[in-house]
């Protein structure tokens, strides 16, 4: 294993030191419990928004802390959800009196730890609403699985809810908006290569040199199937078809198209994929009104991409366009 690390066990702490050194003017980094908090938090009268999850998906979530997006992020160990005390502390740190939103990706560990945080927070007198993201169409949603994973739509939820919170929308309004974004978003990912967590030192799964895995999760969870690597047009079609079939996106719909890199894929390839996405969208009569292209929810050094489509409404579009000023996403600010 070759990685730019000091020690496998110290990766997250070392990264946080770097984050503090780089962005200490706009965020407060705390190490025990680990969290990244907007420097002006709590913002009085504004709904606070926190998220958290395992590390290894950067810039999500820490890179999205700042005006117009998250008030705090709680990083866990690599691919391991954070602990309840982190979320409980972050909730207190961002409560400006208008309540706090927890954005939780649907993974067993994340859900349980955020549940415990909410229980610990009882008695603190802070109103908490949870938005659970579960947009990965690669997973069959049934009683017999942990349910669909939260992936690309999480970035969109955090941005759009962040905009609404800056606009002083109420806790209920922001929560309802976030749930609507999740309900109208669908994603699917693929991998060209596995990734290696620093602690294990081994690839998260085996994939032959000429194979790709379609439907991969952001922690290397297995996808729907493997096949010989084909042209980008074929990959885009493999991801877009289940997405389009899952939510009845219909002709004339306005959508946000998000082509995300898994960490090890260069932007040039993401644009190649985006060209195919745009073509397929046009064939289906979808109007891509907004887009996002880049590596925002990653899986360490994994090569591959995910595609997210979000059916937009007027309110979502307005808050997507609203100013945002975070290390990972910035416009109009």
């Amino acid at each position, binding site marked *: 294993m070759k990685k730019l690390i000091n020690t496998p066990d110290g990766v997250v702490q070392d990264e946080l030191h770097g984050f503090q050194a780089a962005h200490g003017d706009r965020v407060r980094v705390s190490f025990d419990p680990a969290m990244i908090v907007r420097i002006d938090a709590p913002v009085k009268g504004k709904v606070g928004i926190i998220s958290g999850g395992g590390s290894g998906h950067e810039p999500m979530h820490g890179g999205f802390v700042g005006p117009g997006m998250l008030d705090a992020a709680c990083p866990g160990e690599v691919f391991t*959800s954070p*602990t*309840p005390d982190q979320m409980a502390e972050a909730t207190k740190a961002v409560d400006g009196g208008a309540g706090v939103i927890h954005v939780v990706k649907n993974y067993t560990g994340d859900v*349980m730890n955020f549940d415990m945080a909410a229980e610990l927070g009882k008695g603190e007198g802070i109103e908490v609403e949870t938005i659970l993201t579960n947009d990965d169409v690669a997973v069959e949603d049934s*009683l017999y*699985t942990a349910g669909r994973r939260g992936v690309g739509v999480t970035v969109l939820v955090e941005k759009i809810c962040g905009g609404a919170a800056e606009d002083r929308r109420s806790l209920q309004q922001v929560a309802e908006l976030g749930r609507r974004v999740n309900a109208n978003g669908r994603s699917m990912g693929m991998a060209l290569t596995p990734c290696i967590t620093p*602690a*294990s030192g081994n690839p998260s799964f085996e994939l032959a040199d000429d194979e790709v895995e379609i439907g991969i999760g952001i922690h290397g969870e297995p996808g729907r199937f493997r096949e010989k690597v084909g042209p980008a047009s074929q990959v885009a079609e493999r991801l877009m078809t289940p997405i389009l079939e899952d939510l009845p996106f219909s002709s004339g719909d306005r959508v946000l198209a998000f082509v995300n890199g898994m960490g090890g894929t260069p932007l040039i390839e993401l644009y190649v994929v985006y060209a195919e996405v745009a073509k397929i969208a046009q064939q289906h009569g979808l109007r891509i009104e907004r887009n996002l292209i880049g590596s925002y929810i990653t899986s360490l050094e994994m090569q591959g991409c995910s595609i997210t489509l979000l059916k937009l409404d007027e309110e979502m579009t307005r808050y997507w366009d609203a100013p945002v000023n975070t290390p990972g996403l910035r416009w109009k600010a």
Partner: protein
Amino acid sequence: MSISRDDVLRWMELFAAAVAEHRAELVALDTAIGDGDHGTNMDRGMRKALERLGASEQADAGAALKTVAMALISSVGGAAGPLYGTLFLQMGSALAGNPEIELADYAQAWRKGLEGVQARGKAQPGDKTMVDALIPGVEALERASDLSDGLRAAAQAAETGMKATIPLVARKGRASYLGERSRDHQDPGATSTYYLFEAAAAALAG
């Protein structure tokens, strides 16, 4: 024969040692059907637990188990943190203030722990989780009439339950994403739970 606070401290030391010794095995089992962090996370958590047990005087066995629970909850993360945290928290509450724990008290504490784990994780028997080792272990303790025999029977039953997860298809946790492909793998959570029973037998059986 009864269980004292020091017996429970010894049990936790042996469990921490077992987790450290089998860290790589737990990582390998978890890499096959999960996300590969179970051994690392439990090892980190149990080291933290021993550190906290050593840092202050534990009033009784129940208090010691609660200390372990809080250490795991605040240091493990993942699914194992809340699940093992809940297990030890419920056991600790059941045993709090009891200086001489008899077999029936101990079995009842395990029952409370099991109930807590199922309430937190919603797993049913056969879902291919730690519950599949926990249930037979707890039931063996409840059937026993002698503490030492009961502890050994519980470890054996937990081991059988752990091995019985091999042919199962996972319905909970990350392994459930694999569907049929989760078959023919032993569940890492059931494996660490077996080590917990094994450590109990080694520490507490006469």
